[in-house]
């Protein structure tokens, strides 16, 4: 019987007061949910914007770092080249020092021989001979 009455009232667009209250509550709930969704959407949009900005920043950073990496790679290659050159120079320096030592030792010998010959000359050549030739 109740179902019949409800169907009859529905023909005229009418609902029971209980039903009306329930529907009104649902409408309020839906409105609140809508407002919440709108708020969340706004937040999401803001976050998206922030992320996009961050992405741009990070992209710029990546570009910058790529430049730095290239620079460091270049620097590393330079260091390696300089190290190789240093090792070569050290080897050459060692060889040069070896030769310098040999030359200094030979100079010692030459100096010694010159001194010895000088002494022998002074001893063997009579002094008065020079003096007489100077007078002549």
């Amino acid at each position, binding site marked *: 019987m109740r179902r019949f009455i409800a169907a009859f009232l529905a023909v005229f667009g009418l609902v029971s007061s209980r039903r009306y209250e329930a529907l009104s509550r649902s409408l309020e709930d839906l409105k609140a949910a809508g407002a919440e969704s709108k708020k969340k959407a706004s937040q999401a949009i803001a976050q998206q914007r922030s992320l996009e900005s961050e992405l741009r920043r990070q992209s710029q950073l990546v570009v910058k770092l790529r430049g730095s990496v290239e620079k460091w790679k270049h620097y590393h290659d330079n260091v390696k080249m300089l190290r190789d050159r240093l090792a070569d120079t050290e080897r050459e320096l*060692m060889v040069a*020092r*070896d*030769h*310098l*030592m*040999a030359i*200094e*030792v*030979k100079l*010692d*010998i*030459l*100096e*010694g*021989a010159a*001194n*010895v*010959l000088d*002494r022998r000359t002074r001893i063997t050549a009579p002094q008065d001979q020079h003096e007489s030739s100077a007078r002549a």
Partner: protein
Amino acid sequence: MVTPPVVSLVLTGRNDGYGGDFIARFFRSLRFNHQQLTARGIAYELVFVEWAPPSDARLIRDQIFDALPELDVAVCSWYVVDPRYQEVLSLNPRLEYLEFPAKNVGVRRARGRFVLTSNCDVYFGRRIFDALAAGTLEPRVLYRAPRHDLTLPAERAPLDWSVLEDPRNLAGPAHVLKPPYMGSATGDFVLLDRESFHEIGGFNEVYRVARIGIDRNVLVKALSSGLRIADIGGPVYHENHEGSYRLNPAAYAGRETEAPWGDRRWHSGGVSYVNPPTWGLSEAPVREIDERVWYLDFSWAAMPPLVDLTRIVLPVARPGGPAPGHYVRKR
């Protein structure tokens, strides 16, 4: 064929009072070493080079058998070298004694399987006699021994192990040999098989400007020639005396060229040498003047050239071996 002795002990000296009481120190150390060698049955030969002896003093040879009657003439080979060799060989008038050309005279003529060059005031330690007696010495190894300098008691009682090995007699910290050269007082102990000693041509005779450092230089030559240098395992003992370089190495600081041993700053650790084939005065005319005493007469034919710069060479670096030398700023 006569069996060669195990070792030839090559010494050089002359009766010039070097170090105050040279003859007394020499006889004392020789007596000790002779006793030890004999007690262990080590067949040895004493090769003594009486280098440029003063004309106004008795030869050491004329005194030694009175002082050491136990010494057998047959084990001694005595070489007296004409003083003109000292005069003509020297490239430094301040050098009064060309110690290493003198030692080369002995090395060249030594007959032993091993040749030990040392000095007249050196006592060999136990490990040295042990190694000689055991026959464990290897060819192509140059053996070195650290030197312990001793201040010995004034009273001249016969020396024995208790005196030599008493740490209270040490004049300073005992020397330690450091690889690769194992240098330090090298002139007091170089032991090498005769063949290798001949292969390297003895001590440097090309650089006759200094006496100091020639002993170290033989180590460079040895390494460069592919020989090994090893510590024999025990010390030699040296009796301190006046005039010793060890007592005052800085005596000529700032005027090194005036030192009687030559300029110690020469590059003895950095160059090698190739002695002329006549090293050890091998071409000198020799005449026997007494039993087992030979006199080396002066002859220009025995003399190396005054200068032969091609004989100063760079040491050979051998893979795996130590660096043959390093530059030291001289001036």
